């Protein structure tokens, strides 16, 4: 018998014994299908190895004050950006943000953020996961020279605890006043140490200004018992006050949206207004945050998604008193077609809303506009489709025009005027 034949015999014996072991195990778990049948199904898609934007799961786009469109993404523990001087028609070469590599959360509701001042300042904020599951820090880096160099990243949350700090959002004023909000688990961490039960995270605000050398971020708790896995939405009102819109936990795991406006110079914490009353009771993760846009008349416009007993789908409503009272929410998109992930922008009386739907095979990007401050909306229009997954769509603003930014992984990052 040749060595080759012997080797084949050994392999056959091995395969048959392995198969017997599998059959034996399958019999013990005969509710499960054949292991071999399962193994014959292999993943067809291999991981993307490059740093091109199509390899990214998420993209963040913002227009700089000079009109340049920046897009930012994370891959392989680095941040990359490109700049377009023609509203996204073409982009500069890819630039890696020159900071040390570190893990960056960039999927679904979590993604890096970018903002600008009017003095060539570029501001980056992201979340870096830590060694223990569900622990992370909010990070920050600043460029005073329009992205040529960046400061050594710092951690924004100041508790030095190995716990959750995530879902960061950032806005920066023309003068460089930075506001970063995030979901923070320091309180839950401390309560757990005391053997107390907790539910949800806390909403935190950090402020700094690198132009005036206020480089240590303040850390202020704004609310407690927030949902732990939905993005936050923020915007300035026309008094320069920060409005924050997030998914809160009311009562026994009722997940509704809440709104808070931070009055200038106010020392006491205002009580948030409850915005949605859809009664979505879930001790889990909706993974669907909302969006807020405030127009020149200080009219607050909001969109959100819920799957409650009372309300299901995407809803739009507005408020002329910072959320104290609200218009009757109207439904957006086709709920039975999986309408989800809404985002919005306002310009005067014009309101643009985008969202995604899903056909079972294709993702669809939809758009609807109101030209009368939300009293009525045009018929929804299908803008684009995606086959390999869909990032959340966002509307960005330039010169009183809305542009939609929709990243389609392994396909294309779409930027289009609405």
């Amino acid at each position, binding site marked *: *018998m040749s060595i080759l034949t*012997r*080797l084949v*015999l*050994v*392999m056959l*014996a*091995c*395969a048959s*014994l*392995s198969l*017997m*072991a*599998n059959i034996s195990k399958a019999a*013990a*778990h*005969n*509710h*499960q*299908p*054949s*292991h071999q*049948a*399962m*193994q014959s*199904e*292999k*993943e*067809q*898609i*291999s*991981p993307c190895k490059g740093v091109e934007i199509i390899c990214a*799961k998420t993209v963040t786009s913002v227009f700089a004050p000079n009109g340049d469109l920046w897009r930012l993404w994370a891959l392989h523990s680095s941040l990359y950006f490109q700049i377009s001087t023609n509203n996204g028609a073409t982009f500069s070469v890819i630039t890696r943000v020159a900071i040390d590599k570190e893990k960056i959360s960039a*999927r*679904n509701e*979590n993604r890096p953020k970018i903002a600008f001042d009017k003095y060539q300042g570029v501001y980056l904020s992201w979340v870096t996961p830590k060694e223990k*599951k*569900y622990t992370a820090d909010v990070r920050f880096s600043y460029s005073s020279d329009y992205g040529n160099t960046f400061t050594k990243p710092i951690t924004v949350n100041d508790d030095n605890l190995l716990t959750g700090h995530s879902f960061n959002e950032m806005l920066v004023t023309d003068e460089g006043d930075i506001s970063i909000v995030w979901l923070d688990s320091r309180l839950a961490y401390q309560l757990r140490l005391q053997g107390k039960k907790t539910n949800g995270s806390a909403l935190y605000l950090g402020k700094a200004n690198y132009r005036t050398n206020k480089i240590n971020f303040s850390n202020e708790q704004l609310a407690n018992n927030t949902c*732990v*896995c939905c993005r936050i939405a923020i915007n300035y009102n026309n008094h320069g006050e920060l409005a924050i819109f997030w998914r809160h936990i009311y009562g026994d*795991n009722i997940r509704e949206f809440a709104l808070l406006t931070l009055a200038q110079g106010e020392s006491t914490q205002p009580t948030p207004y409850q915005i949605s009353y859809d009664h979505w*009771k*879930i*001790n*889990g*993760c909706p*993974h*669907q945050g909302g969006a807020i846009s405030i127009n020149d008349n200080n009219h607050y416009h909001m969109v959100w*998604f819920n*799957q409650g007993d009372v309300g299901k789908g995407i809803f739009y409503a507005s408020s002329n008193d910072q959320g104290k009272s609200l218009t009757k929410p109207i439904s957006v998109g086709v709920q039975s077609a*999986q309408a*989800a992930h809404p985002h919005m922008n306002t310009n005067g009386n014009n309101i643009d809303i985008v969202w995604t739907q*899903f056909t*079972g095979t294709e*993702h669809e990007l939809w758009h609807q506009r109101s030209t009368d401050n939300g009293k009525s909306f045009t018929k929804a229009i299908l803008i684009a489709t995606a086959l*390999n*997954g*869909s990032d959340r769509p966002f509307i960005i603003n330039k010169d009183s025009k809305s542009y939609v930014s929709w990243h389609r*992984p*392994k396909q294309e990052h779409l930027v289009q005027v609405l």
Partner: protein
Amino acid sequence: MSFFKKLSCGIFICVLVGTSSSYAESIAFNKAQLATLKTQNMGKQWLMLLWSVDCPPCFKELAIIQKLQRQHSDLAVVIINTDANDEIENERKDIIEKFELTDFRNFHFVDGQGDQSRFFIDPTWYGELPRSYFIESSGKSHGKSGLVNQSLLTQWLVN
């Protein structure tokens, strides 16, 4: 090395491979597998549990399954990770091991095909997690979003 030594060495290695956690490897999920699971489980009551590495409450439900499996073994549970992201493969494996889920059939949604997979399981489900499907012996399925408490899981899985 003699032929017999080689043979016994080979058999020893393959016994180790064959009898150690046969279900340790998560398998890419597709529509045919869902149909197979449903067919093979006709006549029994079972649970299909969907989870993500980005869902803290999912871990609580996985921990309950771990606890029940330790107490009762051979629970009729199929576990499916919904991240649809090749980048989390190691995290997924760590969690499956941490919660001792390798005795169960583990699947995962294919990268970029998360919504497609979700849709063929249940077009009325929007991806909120954890998601538990209680499937009757007749094949009739009841989906529930959010953490399911231990008593309900015990009642369903332990007869």
